[in-house]
Protein backbone atom coordinates (compact mmCIF):
# COMPACT_ATOMS: atom_id res chain seq x y z
CA UNK A 1 0.00 0.00 0.00
CA UNK A 2 2.78 2.34 0.96
CA UNK A 3 4.52 1.63 -2.37
CA UNK A 4 1.35 2.63 -4.22
CA UNK A 5 1.12 5.81 -2.15
CA UNK A 6 4.75 6.62 -2.84
CA UNK A 7 4.26 6.03 -6.56
CA UNK A 8 1.17 8.24 -6.59
CA UNK A 9 3.04 10.91 -4.67
CA UNK A 10 5.94 10.75 -7.15
CA UNK A 11 3.58 11.00 -10.13
CA UNK A 12 1.68 13.93 -8.63
CA UNK A 13 5.05 15.57 -7.89
CA UNK A 14 6.05 15.15 -11.52
CA UNK A 15 2.77 16.67 -12.69
CA UNK A 16 3.14 19.56 -10.25
CA UNK A 17 6.72 20.19 -11.45
CA UNK A 18 5.62 20.08 -15.09
CA UNK A 19 2.80 22.51 -14.32
CA UNK A 20 5.18 24.85 -12.48
CA UNK A 21 7.65 24.64 -15.36
CA UNK A 22 4.86 25.54 -17.80
CA UNK A 23 3.90 28.50 -15.65
CA UNK A 24 7.52 29.70 -15.52
CA UNK A 25 7.92 29.40 -19.27
CA UNK A 26 4.58 31.07 -19.93
CA UNK A 27 5.50 33.98 -17.67
CA UNK A 28 8.89 34.23 -19.34
CA UNK A 29 7.37 34.26 -22.82
CA UNK A 30 4.90 36.90 -21.69
CA UNK A 31 7.59 39.18 -20.26
CA UNK A 32 10.16 38.74 -22.99
CA UNK A 33 7.95 39.57 -25.95
CA UNK A 34 9.15 43.17 -26.25
CA UNK A 35 12.77 42.01 -26.34
CA UNK A 36 11.93 39.30 -28.87
CA UNK A 37 10.01 41.69 -31.10
CA UNK A 38 12.75 44.31 -31.00
CA UNK A 39 15.42 41.79 -31.89
CA UNK A 40 13.25 40.41 -34.70
CA UNK A 41 12.56 43.86 -36.13
CA UNK A 42 16.22 44.84 -35.86
CA UNK A 43 17.05 41.90 -38.14
CA UNK A 44 14.06 41.94 -40.49
CA UNK A 45 13.32 45.68 -40.32
CA UNK A 46 9.69 44.90 -41.04
CA UNK A 47 7.03 44.79 -38.36
CA UNK A 48 4.84 42.20 -40.14
CA UNK A 49 7.77 39.83 -40.58
CA UNK A 50 8.95 40.48 -37.03
CA UNK A 51 5.47 39.66 -35.66
CA UNK A 52 5.37 36.38 -37.59
CA UNK A 53 8.86 35.47 -36.45
CA UNK A 54 8.02 36.17 -32.79
CA UNK A 55 4.77 34.21 -32.99
CA UNK A 56 6.53 31.18 -34.45
CA UNK A 57 9.27 31.50 -31.86
CA UNK A 58 6.72 31.62 -29.02
CA UNK A 59 5.06 28.44 -30.23
CA UNK A 60 8.37 26.67 -30.75
CA UNK A 61 9.62 27.67 -27.29
CA UNK A 62 6.36 26.60 -25.68
CA UNK A 63 6.61 23.21 -27.34
CA UNK A 64 10.17 22.85 -26.04
CA UNK A 65 9.23 23.57 -22.42
CA UNK A 66 10.10 20.06 -21.32
CA UNK A 67 13.63 20.24 -22.73
CA UNK A 68 14.54 23.42 -20.89
CA UNK A 69 15.37 23.58 -17.25
CA UNK A 70 16.51 27.12 -16.48
CA UNK A 71 15.49 30.55 -17.67
CA UNK A 72 19.04 31.17 -18.93
CA UNK A 73 18.64 28.18 -21.21
CA UNK A 74 15.28 29.48 -22.28
CA UNK A 75 16.56 32.92 -23.26
CA UNK A 76 19.47 31.50 -25.25
CA UNK A 77 17.17 28.96 -26.88
CA UNK A 78 14.59 31.62 -27.74
CA UNK A 79 17.26 33.84 -29.25
CA UNK A 80 18.58 30.98 -31.33
CA UNK A 81 15.14 30.04 -32.61
CA UNK A 82 14.17 33.64 -33.26
CA UNK A 83 17.32 34.55 -35.20
CA UNK A 84 17.13 31.44 -37.33
CA UNK A 85 13.45 32.05 -38.06
CA UNK A 86 14.20 35.66 -38.94
CA UNK A 87 16.94 34.61 -41.35
CA UNK A 88 14.65 32.04 -42.97
CA UNK A 89 11.83 34.59 -43.24
CA UNK A 90 14.16 37.13 -44.81
CA UNK A 91 15.47 34.61 -47.32
CA UNK A 92 11.92 33.70 -48.28
CA UNK A 93 11.17 37.31 -49.07
CA UNK A 94 11.40 38.59 -52.60
CA UNK A 95 14.70 40.45 -52.68
CA UNK A 96 13.31 43.02 -55.07
CA UNK A 97 10.54 43.94 -52.65
CA UNK A 98 11.34 47.10 -50.75
CA UNK A 99 10.31 46.73 -47.11
CA UNK A 100 8.04 49.21 -45.43
CA UNK A 101 9.59 51.65 -43.06
CA UNK A 102 8.48 50.52 -39.63
CA UNK A 103 11.04 52.19 -37.46
CA UNK A 104 10.55 55.86 -36.63
CA UNK A 105 12.88 57.65 -39.01
CA UNK A 106 13.69 61.15 -38.03
CA UNK A 107 16.49 61.61 -40.53
CA UNK A 108 17.35 60.54 -44.04
CA UNK A 109 20.42 58.83 -42.64
CA UNK A 110 18.27 56.15 -41.03
CA UNK A 111 16.62 55.36 -44.35
CA UNK A 112 19.99 55.28 -46.06
CA UNK A 113 21.43 52.90 -43.49
CA UNK A 114 18.44 50.66 -43.95
CA UNK A 115 18.80 50.63 -47.70
CA UNK A 116 22.50 49.85 -47.43
CA UNK A 117 21.75 47.04 -44.97
CA UNK A 118 19.19 45.69 -47.42
CA UNK A 119 21.97 45.19 -49.93
CA UNK A 120 23.93 42.97 -47.51
CA UNK A 121 23.47 39.18 -47.27
CA UNK A 122 20.92 38.01 -44.70
CA UNK A 123 23.51 36.39 -42.42
CA UNK A 124 25.55 39.61 -42.34
CA UNK A 125 22.48 41.57 -41.28
CA UNK A 126 21.73 39.06 -38.54
CA UNK A 127 25.30 39.23 -37.24
CA UNK A 128 25.26 43.04 -37.28
CA UNK A 129 21.95 43.10 -35.39
CA UNK A 130 23.21 40.62 -32.80
CA UNK A 131 26.38 42.61 -32.31
CA UNK A 132 25.04 46.19 -32.45
CA UNK A 133 21.51 45.76 -31.14
CA UNK A 134 21.93 42.89 -28.70
CA UNK A 135 25.53 43.69 -27.83
CA UNK A 136 26.45 39.99 -27.82
CA UNK A 137 29.99 38.67 -27.62
CA UNK A 138 31.50 36.56 -30.41
CA UNK A 139 30.90 33.45 -28.32
CA UNK A 140 27.22 34.30 -27.74
CA UNK A 141 26.72 35.04 -31.44
CA UNK A 142 28.50 31.78 -32.20
CA UNK A 143 26.10 29.89 -29.91
CA UNK A 144 23.11 31.64 -31.42
CA UNK A 145 24.00 30.99 -35.04
CA UNK A 146 25.67 27.64 -34.53
CA UNK A 147 28.96 28.66 -36.17
CA UNK A 148 32.49 28.86 -34.72
CA UNK A 149 33.49 32.04 -32.88
CA UNK A 150 36.33 32.62 -35.36
CA UNK A 151 33.83 32.54 -38.21
CA UNK A 152 31.67 35.05 -36.34
CA UNK A 153 34.63 37.45 -36.07
CA UNK A 154 35.48 37.18 -39.75
CA UNK A 155 31.84 37.47 -40.85
CA UNK A 156 31.29 40.47 -38.63
CA UNK A 157 34.36 42.17 -40.07
CA UNK A 158 33.23 41.35 -43.59
CA UNK A 159 29.75 42.70 -42.85
CA UNK A 160 31.20 45.92 -41.44
CA UNK A 161 33.51 46.32 -44.44
CA UNK A 162 30.69 45.67 -46.88
CA UNK A 163 28.52 48.16 -45.06
CA UNK A 164 31.29 50.77 -45.04
CA UNK A 165 31.99 50.27 -48.76
CA UNK A 166 28.30 50.53 -49.65
CA UNK A 167 27.86 53.49 -47.30
CA UNK A 168 30.77 55.41 -48.82
CA UNK A 169 29.71 54.54 -52.36
CA UNK A 170 26.17 55.85 -51.95
Amino acid at each position, binding site marked *: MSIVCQAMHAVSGLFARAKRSEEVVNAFLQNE*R*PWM*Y*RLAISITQR*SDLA*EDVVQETLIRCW*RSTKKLTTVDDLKAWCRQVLVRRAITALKAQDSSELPDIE*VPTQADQQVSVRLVLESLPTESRAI*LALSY*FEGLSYQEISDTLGIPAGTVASRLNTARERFRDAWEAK
Partner: protein
Amino acid sequence: MKDPLEQFYERFHDAEVPARLVQIDVPMLEKRRTVREVSVWMTAFVLAWVCTSAPTWTDVSVQPSFAWTSVLSRQLEPMASLESEAGK
Protein backbone atom coordinates in the same frame (compact mmCIF):
# COMPACT_ATOMS: atom_id res chain seq x y z
CA MET B 1 30.81 61.43 -35.43
CA LYS B 2 28.85 58.44 -34.16
CA ASP B 3 28.88 55.20 -36.12
CA PRO B 4 25.79 55.19 -38.40
CA LEU B 5 25.18 51.53 -37.60
CA GLU B 6 25.16 52.21 -33.85
CA GLN B 7 22.75 55.09 -34.35
CA PHE B 8 20.56 52.95 -36.55
CA TYR B 9 20.29 50.03 -34.16
CA GLU B 10 19.74 52.27 -31.13
CA ARG B 11 16.32 53.15 -32.49
CA PHE B 12 15.06 49.59 -32.18
CA HIS B 13 15.42 49.70 -28.41
CA ASP B 14 12.37 51.97 -28.32
CA ALA B 15 10.36 50.18 -31.02
CA GLU B 16 6.73 49.86 -29.94
CA VAL B 17 5.50 46.30 -29.59
CA PRO B 18 2.22 45.63 -31.47
CA ALA B 19 -0.76 45.02 -29.16
CA ARG B 20 -1.67 41.84 -31.06
CA LEU B 21 1.64 40.32 -30.10
CA VAL B 22 1.28 41.24 -26.44
CA GLN B 23 -2.20 39.67 -26.27
CA ILE B 24 -1.29 36.31 -27.78
CA ASP B 25 -2.23 33.41 -25.51
CA VAL B 26 0.65 31.06 -26.32
CA PRO B 27 -0.74 27.78 -24.86
CA MET B 28 -4.04 28.35 -26.67
CA LEU B 29 -2.30 29.29 -29.91
CA GLU B 30 -0.15 26.19 -29.68
CA LYS B 31 -3.22 24.00 -29.11
CA ARG B 32 -4.96 25.48 -32.13
CA ARG B 33 -1.83 25.04 -34.22
CA THR B 34 -1.54 21.40 -33.13
CA VAL B 35 -5.18 20.71 -34.02
CA ARG B 36 -4.64 22.30 -37.43
CA GLU B 37 -1.48 20.31 -38.06
CA VAL B 38 -3.12 17.06 -36.99
CA SER B 39 -6.13 17.70 -39.22
CA VAL B 40 -3.87 18.46 -42.18
CA TRP B 41 -1.96 15.21 -41.61
CA MET B 42 -5.20 13.26 -41.20
CA THR B 43 -6.60 14.71 -44.43
CA ALA B 44 -3.38 13.90 -46.25
CA PHE B 45 -3.45 10.38 -44.86
CA VAL B 46 -7.07 9.80 -45.88
CA LEU B 47 -6.45 11.23 -49.34
CA ALA B 48 -3.39 9.03 -49.76
CA TRP B 49 -5.38 5.99 -48.62
CA VAL B 50 -8.23 6.79 -51.04
CA CYS B 51 -5.84 7.34 -53.93
CA THR B 52 -3.94 4.12 -53.31
CA SER B 53 -6.93 1.90 -52.62
CA ALA B 54 -9.44 3.32 -55.12
CA PRO B 55 -8.24 1.11 -58.00
CA THR B 56 -9.13 -2.01 -55.99
CA TRP B 57 -12.74 -0.88 -55.67
CA THR B 58 -13.41 -2.04 -59.24
CA ASP B 59 -12.49 -5.55 -58.16
CA VAL B 60 -15.73 -7.58 -58.10
CA SER B 61 -14.81 -9.35 -54.90
CA VAL B 62 -14.32 -6.07 -53.07
CA GLN B 63 -16.99 -3.99 -54.74
CA PRO B 64 -20.15 -5.17 -52.91
CA SER B 65 -18.79 -4.17 -49.53
CA PHE B 66 -18.20 -0.65 -50.78
CA ALA B 67 -20.91 -0.04 -53.37
CA TRP B 68 -24.18 1.07 -51.82
CA THR B 69 -25.81 0.56 -55.21
CA SER B 70 -25.38 -3.19 -54.93
CA VAL B 71 -27.08 -3.16 -51.51
CA LEU B 72 -29.89 -1.06 -52.94
CA SER B 73 -30.30 -3.32 -55.93
CA ARG B 74 -30.55 -6.34 -53.65
CA GLN B 75 -33.31 -4.55 -51.72
CA LEU B 76 -35.22 -3.68 -54.89
CA GLU B 77 -34.89 -7.09 -56.53
CA PRO B 78 -37.87 -8.77 -54.75
CA MET B 79 -40.09 -5.77 -55.55
CA ALA B 80 -39.18 -6.04 -59.24
CA SER B 81 -40.02 -9.70 -59.30
CA LEU B 82 -43.36 -9.04 -57.58
CA GLU B 83 -44.19 -6.35 -60.13
CA SER B 84 -43.36 -8.67 -63.01
CA GLU B 85 -45.56 -11.37 -61.52
CA ALA B 86 -48.41 -8.87 -61.06
CA GLY B 87 -48.01 -7.87 -64.72
CA LYS B 88 -48.58 -11.45 -65.79
